[in-house]
């Protein structure tokens, strides 16, 4: 990683929940190391029970880590006092999945938006009102929205309001916990674009928690894949989403159907998808995925090794073999998509017609070439 | 199973302890005491010596914990003390009255359950106008004070048309038919509110279950409505209804106090009222103990029925 000091640094993070009634404690997160640089988007991907939401909650201070540490801007906030936590809310904010649930239906939008100001700033009513109006502008809503109630807005608008609330105090880190999962496709695109624009304008860092690899691939600089509380694979978005090494990452990618029948028929022939999804994950020191893994060997029960690679890691016993064959093979299976060409044209036009947003300058322009459109050499 | 039994035992003992300690503490707060009550019941004037003598005999000159210990000791030997006025052992006095009270309460619970569940299910399934009608009638049933309703019933069904006896109680052992006839008016009077209460709760619980997803699924599998309503929905709605039947039972302990007075039925409630107005504290303590034991047994039955209705669902 770069020489820039990370904004958020998580190391050796382990969270266990007591379950009571003589059942063993549940390990939601197991020895997780992650960093988020200023202005960067780190996505955490996983299925239910992967611990991705626990990770977000630990950063927000909603759960207390069992071991490990969380540093924010160089400060150890693992066991911050309640007072300090309240101060930190100025810098670390959150957007939840459910826009309907995250706004009190009995309070006007203005009342909700001014809450962070009441907690952190000393302002008079007029100043607060001005701040609220500015916040609504920022997320592309009318100023008169402040006087209305959440029931009068659609899901996409409510999510804009939730983002406006999170940005009231100009935080540096925004935790997006499945922030677009509940939204319809067309609205999802609006919100993703808004998040991107805000990052560009305000230099925000995102900890983007999601189960949707297509979205993650689009928004992230780097991606971390969690399975049953353990990091399976991390790396740049292109490394993880286009050349996955870990069998679990491959299973995730192969399982998500793509909106293109021709390509999907080709992918369906793959036998990459995970097996026996009803099998519960292993909780010992070995690979938690081994019962479902199509590459599993006996030695996968040995303690899980971690292989570091360029800008990331892969936790797999068969890293050596998979790293050399995997990426090429997968890429070839994807191949070209002639059927999608006319559509790509349509979409480009709609982009021009309806979306006047500038493409933000990104530090990672180099990685822009969309991988599936090229036919890789074997 | 062991855990559940343990929990039940612990909560039962806690309840008994709480009720008996509460009655003791309250009686210690009372202005005057049993000795005063007895003496003023017997003579118009008495000397302080007589008073102290009687206090000593009754053991109420000792500190409260000692008195409570003494009472507990007696309890372990099957004694709840003696009636201040008649000198009769309290257990004996109350055992003789248990039958009448339980007949009324159990009769009311059964009648309320039958009428209430039937009406509630009908109202939930049909909704619309019948639902509104059930709502209105049940509100009327809830609103009519049972003591007032019993007076009206006596006036109509006993005085004008002598269908049932106006007052009194015939033990089942003496005359089963007379027993039924003597129970009719008290049970009807109490069931008006009871069945309305159960009907409303059944309707709400059923309406809630009927709006759940699995009802749509069961209908889509082609199961007949009869099975969906009476087998699936009713069983899912049963837990809140059974809980409320338990609460109704406990509440009826209070109802009997009024009803037994109106109908001059020699039951626990009538005894409690008499004891209360004469400051006969040992008797009230005895009634409290009996009532607490009844509550414990009812709670046990309710808990057991939860297990039978749905092993997975916890007590709400």
């Amino acid at each position, binding site marked *: 990683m770069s020489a820039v000091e990370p904004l958020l640094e998580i190391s050796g993070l382990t969270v266990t929940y007591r379950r009571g009634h003589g059942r063993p404690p549940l390990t939601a997160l197991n020895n997780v190391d992650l960093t988020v640089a200023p202005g960067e988007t780190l996505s955490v991907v996983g299925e239910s029970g992967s611990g991705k939401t626990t990770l977000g909650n630990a950063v927000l201070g909603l759960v207390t880590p069992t071991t490990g540490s969380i540093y924010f801007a160089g400060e150890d906030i693992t066991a911050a006092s309640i007072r300090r936590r309240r101060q930190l809310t100025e810098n670390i904010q959150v957007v939840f999945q459910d826009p309907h649930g995250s706004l009190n239906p009995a309070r006007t939008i203005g009342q909700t938006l001014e809450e962070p100001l009441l907690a952190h700033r000393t302002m008079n009513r007029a100043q607060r009102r001005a701040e609220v109006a500015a916040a609504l502008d920022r997320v592309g809503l009318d100023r008169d929205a402040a006087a209305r109630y959440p029931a009068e807005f659609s899901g996409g608008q409510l999510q804009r309001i939730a983002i406006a609330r999170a940005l009231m105090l100009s935080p540096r880190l925004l935790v997006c916990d499945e922030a677009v999962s509940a939204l319809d496709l067309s609205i999802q695109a609006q919100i993703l674009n808004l998040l991107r624009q805000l990052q560009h304008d305000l230099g925000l860092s995102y900890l983007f928690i999601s189960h949707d690899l297509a979205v993650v691939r689009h928004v992230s600089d780097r991606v971390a894949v969690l399975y049953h509380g353990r990091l399976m694979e991390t790396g740049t978005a292109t490394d993880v989403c286009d050349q996955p090494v870990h069998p679990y990452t491959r299973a995730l990618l192969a399982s998500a159907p793509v909106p293109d029948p021709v390509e999907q028929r080709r992918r369906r022939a793959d036998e990459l998808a995970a097996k026996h999804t009803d099998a519960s994950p292993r909780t010992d020191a070995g690979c938690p995925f081994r019962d479902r893994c199509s590459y599993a060997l006996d030695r996968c029960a040995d303690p899980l090794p971690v292989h570091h690679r360029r800008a990331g890691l892969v936790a797999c016993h068969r890293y050596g073999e998979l790293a050399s064959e995997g990426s090429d093979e997968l890429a070839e299976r994807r191949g070209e998509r002639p059927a999608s060409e006319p559509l790509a044209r349509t979409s480009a036009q709609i982009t021009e017609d309806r979306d006047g947003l500038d493409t933000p300058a990104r530090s990672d322009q180099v990685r822009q070439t969309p991988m599936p459109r090229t036919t890789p050499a074997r | 199973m062991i855990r559940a039994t343990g929990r039940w035992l612990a909560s039962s003992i806690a309840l008994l302890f709480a009720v008996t300690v509460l009655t003791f503490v309250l009686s210690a707060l009372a202005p005057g005491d049993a000795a005063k009550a007895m003496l003023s019941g017997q003579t118009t004037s008495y000397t302080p010596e007589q008073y102290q003598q009687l206090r000593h005999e009754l053991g109420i000159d000792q500190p409260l914990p000692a008195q409570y210990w003494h009472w507990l000791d007696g309890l372990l030997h099957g004694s709840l003390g003696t009636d201040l006025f008649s000198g009769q052992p309290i257990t004996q006095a109350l055992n003789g009255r248990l039958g009448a009270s339980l007949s009324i309460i159990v009769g009311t619970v059964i009648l309320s359950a039958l009428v209430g569940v039937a009406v509630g299910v009908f109202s939930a399934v049909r*909704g619309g106008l019948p639902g509104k009608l059930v709502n209105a009638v049940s509100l009327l049933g809830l609103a009519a004070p049972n003591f007032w309703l019993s007076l009206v019933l006596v006036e109509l069904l006993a005085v004008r048309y002598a269908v049932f006896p106006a007052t009194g109680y015939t033990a089942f052992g003496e005359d089963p038919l007379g027993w039924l006839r003597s129970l009719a008016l008290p049970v009807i009077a109490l069931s008006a509110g009871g069945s309305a209460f159960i009907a409303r709760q059944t309707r709400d619980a059923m309406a809630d279950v009927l709006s759940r*997803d699995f009802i749509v699924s069961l209908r889509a599998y*082609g199961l007949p409505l009869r099975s969906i309503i009476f087998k699936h929905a009713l069983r899912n709605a049963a837990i809140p209804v059974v809980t409320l039947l338990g609460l109704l039972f406990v509440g009826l302990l209070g109802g009997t106090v009024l009803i037994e007075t109106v109908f001059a039925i020699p039951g626990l409630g009538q005894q409690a009222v008499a004891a209360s107005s004469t400051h006969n504290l040992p008797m009230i303590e005895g009634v409290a103990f009996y009532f607490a034991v009844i509550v414990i047994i009812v709670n046990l039955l309710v808990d057991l029925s939860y297990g039978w209705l749905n092993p997975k669902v916890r007590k709400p």
Partner: protein
Amino acid sequence: MTAITTATTDTLASVRFGRTLPRRRIRTALATHPLAAAGAFYLLALMLAAAGASVIAPADPEQQDLARALDGPSGSHWLGTDRLGRDVLSRLLFGARVTLFDVAVATVVFLAVGVPLGIAAGYRGGWLDRGVVRLADLVLAVPGIVVLLMVVAVFPGNDAATMVALGILGCPGLLRIVRGSTMAIRGELYVKAARLSGLRTPAILRRHVLPRISGPIIVQTSLFCAMALLAESGLSFLGLTRPESQGPSWGNMVGEASNAMSQDPWLLVPTGAALIATVMAFGLVGDAVRDSAMSRGATAPPLFPKRPRHQVADEARQQPGNGVVPVLSVQGLKVTIGGTTVVQDVSFDVPPGKAIGIVGESGCGKSVTARAILGLLPAGGTVTAGQVVFDGTDLTALSDKELNRVRGPGIAFISQDPASSLDPTFTIGSQLREVIRRHHPQSRHEAQRLLRLVRLPDPDAVLRRRPAELSGGMAQRVCIAMALAAKPKLLIADEPTTALDVTVQAEILALLRDLQHRLGMAVLLITHDWGVLADECERAVVMYAGEVVETAGVDQLCAQPRHPYTAALLAANPHRARTGQPLPSIPGAVPKPGEWPTGCHFQSRCPIVQPACGNGPIALTRVASGHLSRCIRTEELVKR
């Protein structure tokens, strides 16, 4: 948890439940419930009359006139006189003062104990919660009457003490409800967000918790008032509190009436009526507030409406064209829920053995269409036009009983949330066997065979379990097995994999595809996910705002969409997007039912809209072989 809450059920919900704000709740409750308004008015009048009893009472309540004892109602004594010739109306008014005062004392105690303890327990949780709940359970189990009698015995003549005891005895119910509501609100995201905004606990309680629990508190309070009134008058009736010697109360007036009953039963009437009316008034107000908070109750439409029998238009029409008779043919379907049209002019065919997908965003009417086919519309929903021809029969013309014979062997259904579509109280075996018995009474070991068919390992173990013991994927397999029990010709799958993880989804989709081919069953798949559609279906029906906007083979649809909505939606999919560039998005949101514009429903969001788009209804027209589009500018779309 990857709780992917798609809003497919939102349409059903938003039409049924109007969201009311708590501050306006009482007002709305009274406005929509005239009876409750009357009750509230009566209570107010009663309180004023009681307060001003000494002014408005026609006579001194204690003034005796033995000569006129037990007179019936007359001009001088509107409600008659009692045994001592005292004016009943005056006694009622003065009695109300006493009785209502007692009820007020009990209610104040009830609120003062129940609300703070409930909020503290619900918000703090932990040991405080456990302690308070134990205590409440204990008080709930104590036979209240014994405590009241004790208090009467211990504090003779001190009626306030009895009322305080009554308040304490009544508060466990309130406490539990306040605690439960507080807990629920504490778990709400908006409270979490407020906490993460840096708001302190008192501010959160004041701004977020208290306003939200006021509804339940009002309901409980009104019910408690009713209960306290009954208890107070009962005790007074027995002479234990408020004895007659201290002046009239409603309870001792009933006692007085009972003494005079043998001579004149009339006296029972005025006091009884006053008691009943007051208790009912409290009950009505409570019911109305509760109903408006929950948007249901006696006014809700029946859950199992009698299906109105349509005129059978014409015998099932022979389908023109390539000679294949579709297994299901929906023609011009229109559905209203609570009077609002949510689906209109929906037509499509499902050929035998084929998989057809209905795709669209939330609120576009996909689920309503599926449920209309099965005749399982939510309460208040009716098919107001169109036909659903299955196997030569118009299902909309059948009675529910006739339709029930189609459900299962004809059309089966699996729903979005497998965990909640199984009855939680019965074992899998019991439910599955009940469905099997219904359709094939003779079959033995059919349950095991079906579970093996859906590739569940160890069927015997699964049969013994209850729904809560299954994972989401297993539960969906069980649901599929139950749907297959009657060997249906058509399976309607409403978002069957939306609640599942992506790897589990892949397995379920593969299973559905396999079953479709092996059993020769047609599938109508409802989804919002274009990937699922591409994976599973041969043809697609795209819905937008209650209408079908495009129908085509899936390959053709994805390659060359002929409706601007389809094209835009496909483009908005991040799978196709170029990294580092904004996603092509559609501005605005789907218009809600009832807010549809004239003409094209997509016009306000369309990139190629023209004035003509708003002129009038636009027909679904054929743009290519097997390709229909509801757009007047499809040519434009192809050119561009």
